[in-house]
């Protein structure tokens, strides 16, 4: 009895033995452990001590008291405190010799805790979409749990077998893999844990995690059990993230951006492949600490970049900088670096993650650009062509020295002006018209010859090229003007034109002269021919013969005179500057007056002379003498018959010239009629026998030969005024 009592006491089951009055005869320790607080149960009534139990237990006990051998069940029970409890029981009747019920053995397990765990597991399996399955190889059956069926999207009454199960896996890699794993497990007892794709009954492709284990009995596989989890969301996210990170890797790779991560706590610096390329080192030569990086930085940049790292870590300043690194082969490369700091909740820096890239080529290109801009600026400033940047409104924004020189303004003055203000008014319209065509996009550039007004009021002739400059958006921002000063060219052209005009005029007068000479020579020759013929013929009377002889004399002397004039004219040639002498007018005038004193009708004339003192001219003595002689004798010859001659001679120096005028009160010449002929050869205007029409022609030529000129004012019956203009000495 002691033994049985000991066995009962130690049994790991909660057992209570009751007599047929349901009073406790004995309990196991496990019972006492399970129902703590119930002590000294022996002799006490079970229903009284354990009234808060599911009713079913008492019903089963009652059955057993009435002779039923065994009752067992399990149930969920809400006790009086409202707690949900699970009980599982097994009630047996205990019979004596006469088969009457002696007592009851009750095994009552409080399964609440394990049941709760089971429920939690199920719940969690549901949430985690984990189903389970079991293959009984002996019976050839396959069991799928509810979730497994749900994952396969099959109805609850679906009966799978091993083959249909495997066929749910996607054809190809997934199905091949699971077939092999299952076969291996059956053959060798191996287990598996893999992620594959199935195609559900509805045709959806779903990623699952399949875990399986084989159960071996005597080296033979009898069962396969496992779980089946829907990991589609995670897997797809994972795949997407993999694609994304691959893409990033590709991007950083092709952009040659190096990514690094520096663990501040561990002093562990991790570089990606690009970093090694950027720093020109191999992975094996880099020991992955901060100092390894620092040692690659150019000596001149080391202190600054180290400080910038510290500033980034302290949060003072973002890490966004550049520095030079020295490659093992000595090459110097320019690196751009950016980084962010990862911190914990308390703001303690944990990691620094950043990117580096090599911008050496970019920098070189920028340097070159800067240099070319600089040289362009140099070209602008030093160009001998005038250059200006001009705003759309015409304001000079920038001008070079050359333009300032051409226009006679200082830079400061020009920058206050618009081109409109300094453009010759007659040229403004043309310029603005073309400029507006550039503004309207009809043309990009134009060239014109135009005139600017210099600061001193003189005209600057320029050749202008205007080009529109567009901003990044393609809108016109300003103009570049190139201004070539062609004033000197224009002046040279003008000089050439003048020279040409002079030559043409001289040519013309030379031809004219040739015809006049020819005319006069021929007229004398014709007369001589005619008279000679008369003299040798008998056409004429004796009286006429005498007359003819006289005329022969006249014609001959006429011919002589003409030849003499011709000589005089031919002798008047343009005199070069160095042949011009300084002559005192008064001296020459006095000599001339002295020479012709006999011709002057003193009793019938008055003459006044008023010369500035020391009036000196540039000239040829003989010419000046001849000119003065001619003008004075003309005044005498063509004096008015009705009144005494009054001749006034005045001389003055003025602005590099010497003016000498001869004013008389003689016959005068009708200038409206003869104006352009008065200085012509053999032009006479009075019926005066002495008029030869050669004097003024020669006078004019002599004056022009000395670089001077002659002009006349006159009115009929009143008198004439000849004005000589000499170069002053």
């Amino acid at each position: 009895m002691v033994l049985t009592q000991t066995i009962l006491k130690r049994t790991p089951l909660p057992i209570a033995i009751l007599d047929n009055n349901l009073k406790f005869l004995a309990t196991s320790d496990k019972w006492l452990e399970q129902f703590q607080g119930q002590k000294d149960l022996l002799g006490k009534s079970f229903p009284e001590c354990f009234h808060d139990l599911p009713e079913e237990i008492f019903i089963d006990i009652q059955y057993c008291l009435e002779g039923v051998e065994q009752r067992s069940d399990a149930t969920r029970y809400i006790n009086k405190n409202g707690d949900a409890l699970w009980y599982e029981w097994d009630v047996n009747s205990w019979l004596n010799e006469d088969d009457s019920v002696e007592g009851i053995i009750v095994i009552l397990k409080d399964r609440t805790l394990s049941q709760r765990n089971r429920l939690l597991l199920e719940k969690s399996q549901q949430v985690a979409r984990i189903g389970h399955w079991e293959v009984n190889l002996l019976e050839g059956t396959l069991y799928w749990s509810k979730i497994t069926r749900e994952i396969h999207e099959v109805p609850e009454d679906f009966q799978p077998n091993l083959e249909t199960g495997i066929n749910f896996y996607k054809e190809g890699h997934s199905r091949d893999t699971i077939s092999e794993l299952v076969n291996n497990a059956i053959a060798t007892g191996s287990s598996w844990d893999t992620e594959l794709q199935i195609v559900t009954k509805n045709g959806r492709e779903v990623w699952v995690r399949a875990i399986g284990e084989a159960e071996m009995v005597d080296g033979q596989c009898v069962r396969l059990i496992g779980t089946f989890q829907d990991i589609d969301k995670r897997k797809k996210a994972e795949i997407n993230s993999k694609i994304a990170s691959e893409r990033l890797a590709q991007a950083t790779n092709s952009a040659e951006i190096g990514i690094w991560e520096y663990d501040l706590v561990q002093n562990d610096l991790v570089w990606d492949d690009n970093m090694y390329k950027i720093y020109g080192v191999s992975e094996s030569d880099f020991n992955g600490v901060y100092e390894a990086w620092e040692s690659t930085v150019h000596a001149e940049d080391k202190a600054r970049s180290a400080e910038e790292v510290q500033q980034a870590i302290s949060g003072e300043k973002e890490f966004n900088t550049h520095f030079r690194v020295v490659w093992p082969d000595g090459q110097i490369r320019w690196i751009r670096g950016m980084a962010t700091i990862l911190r914990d909740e308390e703001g303690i820096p944990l990691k620094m993650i950043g990117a580096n890239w090599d911008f050496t080529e970019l920098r070189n290109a920028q340097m070159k650009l800067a240099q070319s801009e600089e040289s362009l600026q140099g070209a602008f400033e030093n160009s001998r062509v005038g250059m200006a940047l001009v705003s759309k409104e015409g304001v000079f924004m920038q001008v070079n020295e050359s333009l300032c020189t051409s226009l006679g303004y200082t830079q400061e003055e020009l920058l206050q002006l618009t081109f409109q203000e300094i453009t010759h008014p007659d040229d403004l319209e043309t310029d603005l018209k073309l400029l507006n065509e550039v503004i309207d996009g009809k043309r990009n550039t134009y060239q014109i010859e135009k005139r600017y007004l210099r600061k001193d009021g003189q005209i600057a002739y320029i050749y202008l090229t205007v080009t529109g400059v567009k901003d990044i958006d393609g809108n016109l921002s300003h103009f570049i003007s190139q201004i070539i000063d062609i004033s000197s060219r224009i002046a040279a052209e003008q000089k050439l034109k003048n020279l040409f005009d002079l030559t043409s005029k001289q040519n013309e007068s030379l031809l004219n002269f040739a015809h006049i000479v020819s005319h006069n020579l021929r007229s004398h020759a014709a007369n001589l021919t005619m008279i000679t013929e008369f003299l040798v013929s008998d056409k004429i009377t004796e009286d006429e013969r005498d007359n003819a002889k006289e005329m022969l004399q006249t014609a001959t002397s006429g011919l002589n005179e003409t030849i003499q004039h011709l000589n005089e004219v031919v002798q008047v040639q343009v005199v070069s500057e160095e042949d011009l002498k300084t002559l005192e007018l008064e001296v020459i005038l006095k000599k001339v007056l002295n020479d012709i004193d006999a011709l002057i009708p003193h009793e019938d004339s008055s003459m006044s002379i008023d010369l500035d003192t020391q009036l000196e001219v540039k000239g040829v003595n003989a010419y000046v003498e001849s000119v003065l002689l001619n003008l004075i004798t003309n005044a005498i010859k063509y004096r008015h018959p009705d009144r005494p001659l009054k001749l006034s001679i005045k001389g003055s120096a003025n602005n590099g010239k010497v003016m000498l005028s001869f004013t008389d009160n003689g016959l005068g010449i009708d200038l409206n009629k003869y104006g352009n002929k008065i200085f012509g050869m053999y032009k006479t205007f009075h019926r005066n026998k002495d008029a030869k029409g050669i004097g003024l022609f020669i006078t004019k030529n002599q004056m022009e030969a000395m670089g001077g000129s002659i002009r006349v004012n006159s009115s009929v019956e009143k008198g004439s005024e000849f004005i000589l203009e000499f170069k002053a000495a």
Partner: protein
Amino acid sequence: MAVFQTACIIDDDQIYQFGMKILLREVDFSEEILIYQDGQEAIDALQERLSSGDTLPPVIFLDLNMPIKDGWEFLDDFVQIPQRDREQVNIYVISSSINPSDEDRARKYEVVSNYIVKPITSEKLLEIIAQHQ
């Protein structure tokens, strides 16, 4: 009997006038010879003839280079005379000038019959007579 009633010489050259008179007489050119020293004198005299009811001379020998009013100016004045008073007039320009521009210019005047380069000869006068017979 002379070919023309009147011939007119307009020239300032005395020798020419003298020679011309002899030649005109030689070929019996005209009954009467009018001589003017320059264009002004000539145009004044011709106007005078018209206003006194006389006709204009049918032949005028005109020099170009003269003082006061030269041959061109005379021509310009002459063409101002009404057409009916001058339609019988033939003007011969007699000049020493061999300048082609002078000849061209002279021929532009409708009233100018010919341009004759000095010296004038009796043969040239006979040609003029022939043209009018």
